[in-house]
């Protein structure tokens, strides 16, 4: 187990370097970021040159990348154009997005898995059909439509919530945005759990458990659900990264100042430091989440062992 984790951690290094290099190059290809800093005017050449020097943009790209990576390892992610440290931006943005992700994941787990179990056990019944139909609708409607619609109905028409989230972005304010963010994945989780449950219900071990006279609840939760969760856990694990990075649309609609907002602004202003810094952290989140998912397999299914 320990050796497996070490090996996986070592594998992360090339993935990490490759991903950051790609992002770095992509942002650089977009052109000279200084030119966009002076509105519709041309920056005066002396100031532009001075700014380039300050942000290290006057050096060749490979050198910029090496200095950047060197700084990253010492915990310095550089400075954004508005004079703020990127680490400072991260320290305000990530807690918000993490809260949003937690809300979303909770929705996926609680509602998604519950609905999945219910429909899986009642295959073909009206409950199953209506939930299936509902998930189909949710999957086919894009997030921004659900988001704007809920915002308009709950925020403006009925006045149940505030249409935008305040600076503090507390958990209670993030319920609706979290639901919107989770909606599509939630539908997938429901369908995955349903199929998995329906399939395993006829497995030998379930029959044995029932034959032993175990209570129905225990059979479903300890035996059936535990074995059916493996594909669902894989999905939710990879979804953590996707939710954190993919919250741009939801964060824009509800005016949440999280990772998506900083990334969006960074891209718009061609701020290499911000974009690369945030994406680097997101890459790390992805890698760690994947590792955790793999380790969880062993917990769910004792037959899986990592040497």
């Amino acid at each position, binding site marked *: 187990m320990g050796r497996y984790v070490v090996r996986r951690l070592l594998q992360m290094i090339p993935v990490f370097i490759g991903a950051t290099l790609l992002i770095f190059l992509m942002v650089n290809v977009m052109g000279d970021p200084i030119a966009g800093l002076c509105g519709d*005017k041309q920056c005066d050449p002396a100031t532009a040159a001075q700014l380039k020097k300050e942000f290290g943009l006057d050096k060749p790209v490979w050198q910029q990348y090496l200095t950047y990576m060197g700084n990253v390892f010492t915990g310095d992610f550089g400075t954004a154009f508005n004079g703020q440290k990127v680490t400072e931006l991260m320290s305000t943005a990530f807690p918000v997005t993490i809260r949003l992700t937690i809300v979303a994941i909770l929705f996926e787990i609680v509602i998604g898995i519950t609905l999945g179990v219910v429909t899986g056990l009642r295959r073909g019944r009206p409950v199953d059909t209506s939930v299936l139909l509902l998930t189909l609708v949710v999957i086919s409607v894009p997030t921004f439509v659900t988001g704007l619609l809920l915002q308009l109905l709950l925020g403006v028409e009925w006045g149940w919530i505030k249409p935008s989230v305040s600076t503090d972005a507390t958990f209670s304010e993030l319920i609706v945005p979290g639901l919107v963010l989770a909606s599509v994945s939630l539908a997938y989780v429901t369908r995955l759990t349903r199929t998995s449950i329906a399939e395993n219900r006829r497995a030998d071990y379930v029959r044995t458990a029932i034959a032993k006279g175990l209570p129905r609840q225990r059979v479903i939760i300890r035996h059936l659900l535990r074995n059916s969760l493996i594909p669902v856990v894989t999905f939710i694990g990879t979804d953590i990264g996707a939710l954190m990075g993919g919250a741009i649309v939801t964060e824009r609609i509800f005016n949440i100042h999280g990772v998506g907002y900083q990334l969006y602004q960074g891209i*718009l202003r061609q701020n290499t430091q911000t974009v690369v810094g945030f994406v680097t952290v997101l890459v790390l989140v992805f890698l760690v989440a994947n590792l955790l998912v793999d380790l969880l397999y062993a917990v769910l299914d004792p037959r899986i062992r990592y040497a």
Partner: protein
Amino acid sequence: MRGATHAKWAACAAAVALAATACGGGGSDSGGGDSGAVLSSSWGDPQNPLEPANTNEVQGGKVLDMIFRGLKRYNPKTGAAEDMLAEKIDTSDSQNFTVTVKSGWKFSNGEAVTAQSFVDAWNYGASLKNNQKNAYFFGYIEGYDKVHPEDGSKQTADTLSGLKVTGTNTFTVKLTQKFSTFPDTLGYPAFAPLPKAFFSDHAAWIKKPVGNGPYAIESYTKGSKMSLRKWDGYPGDDKAENGGVDLKVYTDNNTAYTDLMAGNLDLVDDVPAAQLKNVKNDLGDRYLNTPAGIIQTLAFPFYDKNWNKSGSEKVRKGLSMAINREQITNTIFQKTRTPATDWTSPVLGEKGGFQDGLCGDGCEYKPDEAKKLIQEGGGLPGGQVKISYNADTGSHKEWVDAVCNSINNALGNDKACVGNPVGTFADFRNQITQKKMSGPFRAGWQMDYPLIQNFLQPLYYTNASSNDGKWSNKDFDKLVDQANQETDTSKAIGLFQDAEKVVRDNMAAIPLWYQNGSAGWSDRLSNVALNPFSVPVYNEIKVG
């Protein structure tokens, strides 16, 4: 109906909550009454640190306009420069100025505003090592080339030799050339005075800027919110008529508009294009749409000889006459743009040099004449014009396509004009700077200060900083020089208008439309206005 009642309740709740915070957080405010109420307003994250000489966009400009007062201030209604901190600004030769600062003014931290506060601030703004993006404002002051060498080489001085403090409240300014309207440029925030704290503890100042305006910053969370409160010790006449302003950062102006609808926000100063159709229904007369100091033009690459041969001016004029400005501003911009009839802006006012219709028939839609003129001028270079624009912001694609459509219809050739999108604004700027344009390109100009000089000299003077098309004309340069030397303001403006006529006769750039500023507000507010820079005049807004 039920929905409407709910919304009303939410609005009331929000209003109560806001009023409560105003009473609780007002600090020294004695509370109660309308003048104590705080309003909330939409905001965008300023692109640069909030230093006066480093702020060149509206979002940072909003804050500076609240916390700073300079020597002059532009009248929000007429755009005229009026004395604020300046007791008087004297000159006998339009080149050497003696500035007397009014005594009794203070920064909100108690420090007195003196001549030194101005000189220090200007020296800081001009110095290359401070990376101030508005440094070029100080370019007319003697010694600028020493503190800000144009080639980026090492600066040989830290202070401008043209600035001298001669007393507690007086200083002199020496310019490198005659510039009669120089005092009128001093209303721009870049010329604001700075307290000693700015220099002694810069990092702390940036975190919470301190100025001498009617508001003081109570708290500032970068990237999300700024709370400004009325400063009771403000000595000026334009005291804040409300208790304060909470600026909230919105990523998307649609969300801000939705918040306004829900009673969660009091003022939006950028109504999203998608909502323009509903705005009359939603807000009634709580909506403002007035010209701002921004003009959009099509510039031409005069370094390309196809566009700079004899007869080209006829082609350019012909193209201008083939554009149906009225129709495009009505349908695409929902009247948030006003068709241009000169090369300046209505915010200048007649007195300031704006002349409605100066462009004459060159800016009117006359398709038949347009076709004839272009043929006389030798036809379109290469048989086709490509209008370059940046596709990332400002929905430029729509109007460029519409302009091309209009030209194609007028010429009866559906290949006469096509749009040429450039991915990002930064790349677009790069191509312009590197002189890679082969046809007309989008050029927008947002004025620095409401003077006719600012609409002409930086854009059309030979080798001027924003002369992107590299147009050069001796007559124009001569008239601008004369105007700058003229001590009589109205005569100077007349000369600038003569220079503008040279631009017209050569059609150096095609004026398209003046951009409007817009604002919508909740029913709690009254007396909302936009200043010539499209920034709401916060200190005049009444709440309740």
